[in-house]
């Protein structure tokens, strides 16, 4: 199939992300990759749980003294909402509405940036208190887990913005539709991981 075929809303396939063999492979492959990421994050989570609140004798930092619910709540709301906005983007992608898709992805980016900003503020705040990466086993495990998630957010932001800029002038076709779809899948997965981070790290941390 010629990837440069021009479409109208009437000829645009129902599942443009899986209309070509490359698209099918990409979507299946990306899901399989996400299954691998589940295990990757599980290793980090399990290690965090094993090392939670562990440190050198007389360590002053615990999850209860460190974490604050309002900040975690704000971050959660930002990321959850960005998940919905990327659903909107894919909705418009399937309707062959390029402008609306770009707009919704743009909103997703802004929300993601907001989340990242709050996370950087949080880390800065902790480091300022003396809770640095090499302070204890707990701090190393905490920064590794939440930092790996933050790294994924950063990658997602770079990825989605690269796609938006690259395709800004040429609109949708069957070559880039799977790319947008897969980037959205990645963004949802980041949200899935965050659901567990706010539950297991922050909420269960505040309880103790």
């Amino acid at each position, binding site marked *: *199939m010629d990837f440069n*075929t021009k*479409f*109208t*809303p*009437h*000829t645009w*396939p*129902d*599942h443009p992300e*899986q*209309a*070509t*063999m490359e698209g*099918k492979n990409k*979507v*299946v492959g990306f*899901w*399989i990759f996400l*299954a*691998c990421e*589940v*295990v990757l*994050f*599980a*290793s980090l*989570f*399990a*290690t965090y*749980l*094993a090392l939670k609140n562990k440190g050198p004798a007389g360590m002053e930092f615990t999850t209860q003294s460190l974490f604050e*619910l309002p900040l*975690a*709540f704000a971050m*959660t*709301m930002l990321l*959850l909402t960005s*998940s*919905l906005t990327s*659903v*909107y983007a*894919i*909705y418009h992608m*399937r*309707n062959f509405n390029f402008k609306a898709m770009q707009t919704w992805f743009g909103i997703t980016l802004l929300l993601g940036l907001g989340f990242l900003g709050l996370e950087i503020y949080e880390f800065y705040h902790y480091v300022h208190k003396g809770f640095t990466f090499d302070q204890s086993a707990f701090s190393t495990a905490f920064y590794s887990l939440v930092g790996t998630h933050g790294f994924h957010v950063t990658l997602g932001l770079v990825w989605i913005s690269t796609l938006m800029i690259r395709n800004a002038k040429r609109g949708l076709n069957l070559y880039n539709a799977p790319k947008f779809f897969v980037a959205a*899948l990645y963004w*949802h*997965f980041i*949200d*899935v991981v965050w*659901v*567990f981070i*706010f*539950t*297991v790290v922050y*909420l*269960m941390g*505040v*309880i*103790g």
Partner: protein
Amino acid sequence: MSSHDTPIVAKSQAQYEYDRHHNAVHMRKQVVNFAIMIFFTFIAFAVVAADFSKYLIFPLILLLAGVQVVLQLYSFMHLEDKKTHFGGVIGFFMWMGILIAFTFFLAFLTIIWW
């Protein structure tokens, strides 16, 4: 054009309008799911803020997180869509990953101590 590609056909106006409507209905369902997720998040934060018993909070917020994840996977990530290519195989791999992940948690919480 290989045998793996979907042929391009122009839809009739009626078909087009039907598909558009179908997509719009589907999108409304997504918004409802989003509302459920936000609601669950509120409950999770509320029970923690209200400082109930640990034995109520832990299972409850873990359950809420689990439901949220299933909603994300099947609704937001379109896994429930029957037209997803090899959706069953994808689901199998995801659940396999989740099962293996569960054994990590079990092991790291029970047989790592001191």
